[in-house]
């Protein structure tokens, strides 16, 4: 488990911990997201062969990670929040990987 400690229960502070993210971080992230959107559109205008889909996916993932880390404050959150976020995507990954394992091998011959 991520937090096997007792300190977590014995709160020393009474009020929630406040971490105020500086303004420039928000603006930078916003700018990055906007650029990402433009890039996504731009990349889709060209025929990049098999690379169109991976590029779109990578950009979208980077954007999502930025939102999660900064807008959603995960970067300053307790380890448990990280665990929850990563676990969710891990579980979704299980669904994708094992399902595709079936579809992609259906046409294979039996030896």
């Amino acid at each position: 488990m991520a937090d096997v400690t007792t300190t977590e229960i014995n709160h020393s502070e009474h009020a929630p911990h406040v971490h105020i993210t500086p303004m420039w971080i928000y603006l930078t992230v916003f700018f990055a997201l906007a650029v990402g959107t433009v890039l996504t559109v731009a990349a889709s205008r060209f025929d990049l062969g098999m690379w169109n889909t991976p590029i779109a996916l990578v950009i979208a993932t980077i954007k999502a990670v930025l939102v999660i880390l900064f807008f959603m404050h995960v970067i300053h959150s307790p380890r448990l929040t990280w665990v929850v976020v990563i676990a969710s995507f891990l579980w979704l990954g299980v669904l994708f990987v094992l399902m595709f394992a079936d579809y992609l091998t259906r046409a294979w011959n039996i030896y």
Partner: protein
Amino acid sequence: MMLSDFPLWPEQASTVAPGVDALMTFMCIVCGGVSVLTFFVIFILAIKYRRTSENQLAQDYEPPKALEAAWIIIPFLIFMFMFVWGSWLYFRIQRVPENAIDIYATGKQWMWKFQHASGQREINTLHVPVGRPIRITMASEDVIHSLFFPAFRVKSDVLPNRYKTMWFQATKTGRFHIFCAEYCGTQHSGMIGWVEVMEPVDYQKWLAGGAEGSLASQGEKLFQKYACNTCHTNDATGRGPVLLGLYGTTVTLSNNATVTADENYIRESILNPQAKIVKGFAPVMPTFQGQVSEDDLLKLVSYVHSLGTQKTAVVPVETPSSKDTSAGSPLKPGAGIPPQKDKGATP
């Protein structure tokens, strides 16, 4: 009741059956053994360390922790052995021998239609030769069914819009059950039949039509001889109603009266078709009065009877393929999902 009414082990009638039974025996011994051992230990301990006084506490003793490792590793190894055996058997069940005879099967609410390569069609009965591998290529016309031969220890789901194959090689002659094992609606439990395993010579004779079959199977010949099958096809394409599953159902007539399709009604329908016109059909069926002998009539009636009691509506359900512009027929192979292996011919 007699012991024969109370079987504990199914008949073994295919080449893979002993293999499946061997694995089953192994599983029963290992799992049964471990379970019984566990129960025995629990039983002994529960008696031996029974609480004798209200306030008695447990002794301050812990079994060695190494036990923990033992009962993680040993079961795991046993499990892996089961996995390997099971998969090996599965591949044996899946891998079709080269020289297999092809038979085509269609599942449909609620009947099995089989078609032999030489053109014979049959319903809910399947004739196969003993000692020859048989490959069945199959698809469903509506929902998912599952073709199950308990005596052969094989079954396979039958999917709409996609071909699947299964195979078996019978090892003894006789009659064995065919069941539909995937729930498919009202008459799921009536979607049953028999597989008749014959000597290859008899099978050849049967294929050639030379064999003296039952009344019904002779009726089937007559059905072709009198060209009934030109109008009464197995799907809704003919000019006459589908007779599959007719027997025993309630038929609505053109005057909205209803009548139960029993032997008499069938007989009358053959001899005097205009007497009762089925709703939704034109009165185009010719009379066979004077052309069919009583003998033959009986065979015809018993054939129609044998088509079973599976159908609920007189007008067959449309297959849900009307919108499928790409496949045309719902049975077109490869429409949709890549088939496991291209098996070529269509039923």
